[in-house]
């Protein structure tokens, strides 16, 4: 075997991404921010990205390496884990998107800390760390199961990007027997007492569970330290062991000339009525309240399932009076969440579930459709480990208050928790719209309505029954249940038909050739997998196609000059903001 250069650096590292080495061994913040390249508003950058999360950060990093001039607007701060984050549940509220939103429908979805990120790194800053792939079936549920919607791409289109992103995060876990069987670059992490109990129960019940997959380095990985198993994954990893774009893609992006403009909220995408192309994005500097306009040859909206539709719907013009990309009233529709009921079980021993990362072991035995169950599609089961406030919400949801609540809380260390991720189906009326009130930036507040269908209810009920059965087999002494949701996807789905989708298979808005959407909102279905890895893989694929010019980012009408990046071959990277033409 030939030893490549990477081996001499102490670990196997991904190609084309030096983020792990660009981080500092002794500090957690991203180095090099002070020498980050700056563009002027009037510079027409090659690509302006809105949102620095799983989609936007990967897209920026890839295209910067291909020589594109990229600016990323991010509503939240540029986090420094050393100085901005604490090892505390209640003290981490600033990690979440807490601007006002209205939730409605018959089964409204809680937002905020449950699923909405804020700041450089996006929701992955506070996700648990589970990074399963989608199954091949997820891309063709309409054809296979008669529900949902077929993606315009297949699993095989994403597979190389799954592999690449798994090396970049990196993902640790046992060999994965479900979906398209595959292995992970890092070995599985040790598990805590609660997961040991769950595993024994599942095994006895005939349910296969495996350790991982989690995006937490297990061993040397550049300058990122090993996990210390403190259990605060959902509060932002102060260690830099858990992957988020802040540590996995932003350092390399900055090194390759990306400007990340934090504390900047996009309020409107500007359109040239004559050509029908977008020309830039109006944004407000959160700290000063000043509105500015960044010019760009192309724009990628990467704001996730609530904010991407909101920005498109708010960007109205004579040509698109219902908002950009919304000619066929598709923007904001088919938003999905996963049914994430959790069942806790009580055991004689002290399990102390607050130790070890909350994501430990999971099962995809129930992922695919089984006609015998009486509903389409399925669910996965994962261990979760609520900290005290999360545990209190769990106890309350089971109907306990006063002295009973306190008693179950005192019993905290005896409990283990299984959570489900049920694939709930895309429905047109589960949608984001603009509410009749404005926020502090003069932008209409988003409203998200959600109602389950019968298939959804049957799926959730079956998952709950399965988790109860596992715990009973495990010998649980008592059980407590909470019904909840997790994750967000959909809202700007990709498709093969402009009348039933918002973007094509290259993430391009059907009616607007230089406008792209690249985040969780593009997913037509959600599987029973946590979405982060798939969002990154989609961004990786899009970048691959744009950089390889298999997709043109801008279609030049006669009067339009050539794309800026093609003209900048002689412009030096340090000679920052000289206009390219």
């Amino acid at each position, binding site marked *: 075997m030939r030893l490549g250069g990477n081996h001499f650096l102490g670990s196997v590292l991904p190609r084309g991404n030096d983020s792990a080495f660009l981080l500092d061994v002794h500090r957690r913040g991203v180095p090099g921010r002070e020498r980050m390249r700056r563009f002027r508003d009037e510079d027409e950058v090659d690509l302006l990205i809105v949102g620095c999360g799983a989609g936007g950060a990967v897209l920026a990093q890839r295209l910067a390496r291909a020589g594109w001039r990229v600016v990323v607007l991010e509503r939240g701060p540029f986090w420094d884990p050393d100085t901005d984050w604490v090892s505390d549940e209640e003290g981490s509220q600033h990690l979440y998107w807490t601007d006002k939103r209205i939730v409605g429908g018959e089964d409204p979805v809680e937002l905020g800390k449950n699923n909405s990120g804020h700041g450089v790194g996006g929701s992955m800053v506070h996700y648990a760390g589970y990074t399963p792939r989608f199954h091949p079936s997820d891309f063709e549920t309409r054809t296979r199961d008669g529900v949902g919607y077929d993606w315009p791409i297949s699993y095989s289109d994403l597979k190389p990007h799954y592999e690449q992103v798994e090396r970049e995060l990196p993902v640790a876990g046992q060999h994965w027997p479900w979906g398209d069987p595959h292995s992970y670059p890092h070995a599985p992490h040790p598990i805590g007492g609660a997961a040991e109990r769950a595993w024994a129960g599942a095994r006895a019940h005939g349910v296969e569970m495996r350790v991982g997959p989690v995006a937490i380095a297990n061993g040397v990985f550049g300058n990122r330290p090993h996990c210390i198993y403190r259990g605060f994954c959902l509060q932002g990893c102060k260690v830099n062991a858990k992957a988020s774009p802040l540590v996995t893609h932003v350092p390399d992006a900055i090194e390759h000339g990306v400007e990340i403009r934090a504390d900047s909220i996009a309020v409107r995408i500007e359109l040239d009525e004559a050509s029908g192309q977008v020309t830039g994005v109006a944004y407000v500097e959160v700290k000063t309240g000043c509105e500015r306009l960044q010019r760009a040859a192309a724009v990628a909206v990467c704001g996730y399932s609530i904010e991407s539709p909101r920005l498109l719907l708010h960007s109205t013009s004579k040509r698109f009076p219902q908002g950009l990309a919304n000619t066929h009233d598709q923007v904001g529709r088919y938003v999905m969440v996963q049914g994430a009921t959790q069942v806790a079980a009580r055991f004689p021993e002290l399990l102390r579930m607050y130790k070890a990362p909350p994501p430990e072991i999971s099962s995809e035995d129930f992922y695919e459709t089984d006609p015998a169950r009486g509903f389409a599609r399925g669910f996965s089961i994962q261990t979760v480990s609520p900290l005290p406030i999360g545990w209190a919400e769990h106890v309350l949801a089971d109907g306990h208050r006063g002295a009973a609540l306190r*008693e179950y809380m005192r019993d905290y260390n005896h409990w283990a928790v299984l959570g489900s991720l049920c694939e709930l189906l895309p429905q047109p009326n589960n949608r984001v719209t603009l509410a009749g009130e404005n926020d502090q930036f003069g932008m209409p507040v988003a409203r998200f309505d959600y109602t389950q269908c019968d298939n959804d209810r049957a799926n959730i009920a079956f998952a709950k029954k399965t988790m109860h059965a596992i715990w009973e087999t495990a010998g649980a002494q008592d059980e407590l249940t909470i019904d909840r949701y997790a994750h967000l996807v959909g809202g700007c789905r990709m498709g093969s038909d402009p009348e039933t989708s918002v973007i094509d298979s290259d993430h391009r808005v059907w009616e607007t050739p230089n406008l792209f959407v690249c985040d969780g909102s593009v997913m037509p279905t959600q599987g029973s997998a946590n979405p982060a890895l798939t969002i990154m893989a989609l961004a990786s694929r899009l970048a691959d196609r744009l950089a390889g010019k298999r997709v043109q980012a801008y279609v030049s009408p006669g009067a339009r000059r050539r794309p800026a990046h093609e003209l900048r071959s002689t412009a030096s990277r340090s000679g920052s903001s000289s206009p390219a033409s």
Partner: protein
Amino acid sequence: MARDFREPDHLPKVRGDEGADPGELPRQRRGSTPQMHGRYPDYDCLEQSEHWDELTRKLVVDRVEHVPELRFFSDAEAATLTAFCDVVLAQDAEPRIPVLAFVDQKLAGGRLDGYQYAGMPDDRQTWRLVARGLDESARSHGAESYAAAPIDRQQEIMSAFAQGELSGGVWEQLACKRAWSVVMRSVLAAFYSHPWAWNEIGFGGPAYPRGYARLGIGLGEAWEGGEALDVDPGAGAKQRRPA
């Protein structure tokens, strides 16, 4: 009666009531817990604070040492809501975690949770309406206010609130169950972010930068408190409690 926590016979659903009398638990010997009882009488997470990062230490220690003054609620609202918080958290004796002070601080600072149910007012308004509603419900039972009502009545109203059964007056402006969820979110966050509550339940507290090394079933770090097993807190404590 000695209590062995390996058995579940102290738990509410197993017993079919509110759970075992916490007065039978051992008195806290190190540090504080709310009402000074708990499972881990010799564990005080604050003793570990020198192992926490500075930002977290300041934040957590401040919860004990600098209780914020009320800025959002009026005195009357505060009286009603303090009584409500005590009932819903079964804080029936000192020392109490000053839950409402933390809720007040959050609301006064405009730090809301990022979503508002359609048809419901702003969370801040919801809190004020709940205070009025609790007083109205207490008055309809002949009490002067919620805080002045007998404890049984307070508990009854609290339970009706939890089950979405309060109606009339102010409650017509609120979806009762939604209001319960808005209020309880903040109440639970305030109580279970307090280190005294962590002592009571045996939570390790902030663990950065030290982390954990002993993860398996029944394992603990050297500094983590053991559960009080085979102790006999019963006789003495029971006699001291008023009937």
